[in-house]
């Protein structure tokens, strides 16, 4: 997936002399769209993160610039540090689970057995459900008094009394990770399946004639040939997970206390519940910077592997 823009770029280079302006004309609507609907909000967000934007000043045209005060305020707030920590725990936890299981499922469904396709289709349903629905379902399932998880575990005598899954920080975070992985696994599976299908079968044939074991085939052929797909899956997964909002907001609202507060919910609360728009924007900018760094690392690895 990620290499396609580069291929298009390559073709464009060859044909540059002929249709340079036509080419630019084709991308122009997209560029304008991005500048207006993506570029402007980002810049606006950066601007108010340096301004004294609160309930009192929101409407004023010339809000005072207050330098880094908003950033100082949020960095001094222990909840902010915790929400960064939570965001990383959540993201890395989700990535590990959804990538490993997604990869395993992708390998499994690439075997051409009967019903492979319909079952794969069914697995994807969890990804297509609105996140709010998923969040509510998991909230009910993990409820202390009437949740099905507690009922099952009690009947299996694994636990003696109902566990308040969403009532203490550690377990609440674990439940969030499980819920998100349920959505993320099919997403990872889909991307990796596409990659797997692009690996020509004769490579495997040649390898098995040379006496390579299945394990060797996996690590020497599948993984290296799949590397661009793996990279883009991980980065896309990271971006999508890191900016989580709806799932956390619906399931725990960042609670109990602030034990599942992530950057996006922290920013939302500052802006839309406490009307500290400047500070909310500052938190969103921190989120932006984190993702920007990840995206840069990704591009660096991609362009390196292209040179190879």
């Amino acid at each position, binding site marked *: 997936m990620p290499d396609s823009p580069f291929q298009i770029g390559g073709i464009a280079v060859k044909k540059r002399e002929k249709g340079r302006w036509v080419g630019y004309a084709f991308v122009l609507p997209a560029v304008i769209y991005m500048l207006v609907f993506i570029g402007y*909000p980002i810049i606006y967000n950066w601007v108010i993160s340096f301004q004294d934007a609160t*309930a009192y000043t929101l*409407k004023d045209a010339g809000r005072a610039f207050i330098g880094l005060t908003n950033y100082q305020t949020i960095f001094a707030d222990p909840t902010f540090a915790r929400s960064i920590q939570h965001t990383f725990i959540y993201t890395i936890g989700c990535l590990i689970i959804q990538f490993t299981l997604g990869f395993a499922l992708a390998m499994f469904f690439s075997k051409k057995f009967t019903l492979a396709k319909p079952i794969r289709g069914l697995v994807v349903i969890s990804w297509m459900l609105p996140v709010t629905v998923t969040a509510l379902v998991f909230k009910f399932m993990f409820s202390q008094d009437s949740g099905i998880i507690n009922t099952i575990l009690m009947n299996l005598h694994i636990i003696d009394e109902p566990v308040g899954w969403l009532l203490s920080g550690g377990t609440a975070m674990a439940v969030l990770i499980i819920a998100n992985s349920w959505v993320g696994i099919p997403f990872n599976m889909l991307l990796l399946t596409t990659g797997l299908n692009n690996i020509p079968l004769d490579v495997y044939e040649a390898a098995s004639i040379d006496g390579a074991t299945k394990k060797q085939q996996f690590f020497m052929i599948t993984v290296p040939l799949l590397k661009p797909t793996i990279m883009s899956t991980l980065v896309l997964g990271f971006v999508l997970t890191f900016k989580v909002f709806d799932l956390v907001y619906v399931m725990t609202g960042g609670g109990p206390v602030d034990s599942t507060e992530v950057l*996006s919910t922290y920013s939302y609360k500052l802006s839309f519940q406490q009307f500290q728009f400047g500070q909310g924007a500052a938190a*969103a900018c921190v989120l932006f910077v984190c993702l920007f760094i990840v995206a840069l690392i990704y591009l660096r690895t991609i362009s390196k592997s292209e040179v190879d």
Partner: protein
Amino acid sequence: MKKRLVAIMMVMSMTALTLAGCGGGDSASTDDTAAAEEGSEESSADADGKITISFWHYMSTDKEGKFVQEAVDEFNESQDEIYVEAQYLPREELMKQYTIGVVSGELPDVGMVDNPDHNSYAAMGVFEDITDLYEESGDTNFLEGSISSCYYDDKLYGLPWGNNCLGLFYNKQMLDEAGVEVPTTWSELEAACEALTKDGTYGLAISAINNEEGTFQFMPWLLSAGGSVDDLSSAESKEAMSYIKGLVDSGYVSSECVNWTQADAEKQFASGKAAMMINGPWQFSGLAEDAPDLEYAVAQVPKADNGDYASCLGGENIGICTGANVEASWEFISWIMSKDKSAEICKSIGRLSPRSDVDTESLYADEPNWKVFAEIMPNAQSRGPSPSWPELSAAIYNAQQQVITGAKDVDAAMDEAATTIAGLENK
């Protein structure tokens, strides 16, 4: 070089997803937003020469909302100059739309707001100053406690729409079976809970969620103990918090209350999983629907053993939004808040009229549960008014959550909340 350009573009677009995500909020509400945007078009005269007024409220369409719509329809038919278009948005979404609307200019003509938040939105510039219109109208019969939440900087930014307050709902059958009298004090409540808590049934359901509802529900305990929002580190305030903590620790109240909204508490009570609950009159219609056979009654929230009954005033206000057609909007809100209309609507949506000239006693003569709320109301204390109420409230519900979940002890949590609140007031 070319590649680098493409690369930078990609990075930009990928990271942009994050901000789009922040702004988008929950995907479930997209439809509402789209609908809201349609409704927000500037009030304009249509083909018939009627002026169209948009009215945003958060009375959910399946319950209170239909009565709101009926009233709006009646207004539309009563005259042929103004056409009101009522639009439901979930509360959180509506609040977000106001904030966005201040910057983008896309506000409705008339909007509803939760009364403790009214000050903040008035300060933000969401609502028009209607002091003159109100004073000239000659109809100023509103309860002091209710209309005071519409004032900011001595100017009036709206009218009270409906009032509510909290009481103790109890399941008659369960209390009879356990041989328990209706508790009136904290110790009686504890004793009652002890007798009523059984396998699968909790004595009491409350909401201690981390939003305004959690604060609202904590207020009766706080006020009855003699504590106050301005002095959360006092012994009285701490006593109230310790009491709640005790109820949860003894297993009388489910520890899940930290994730329960008041609507969730109602579900517990309706399904018999709680013998009593703290809730308000807006739950009457829900209870009638969820548990038509449930026999319940209402009493005052039990008072501290050496304190008085206390309750917290809740409710909504409506205001005319900035940039709206003020005359036409005033026409509508003064009609819907007139004596007879207010009494009628409030009764059907489970509110008490905020008007001082509505005779609640005769209106609710045949409804004992309503009468209890009508008796509680005059003493119910309002929250704020203060433009920093949202932050103040966050300090309170956070403390409550910390204490109930055991993250902090009562002293530490309340002292911290008191410090936060003192910091807000010095700003």
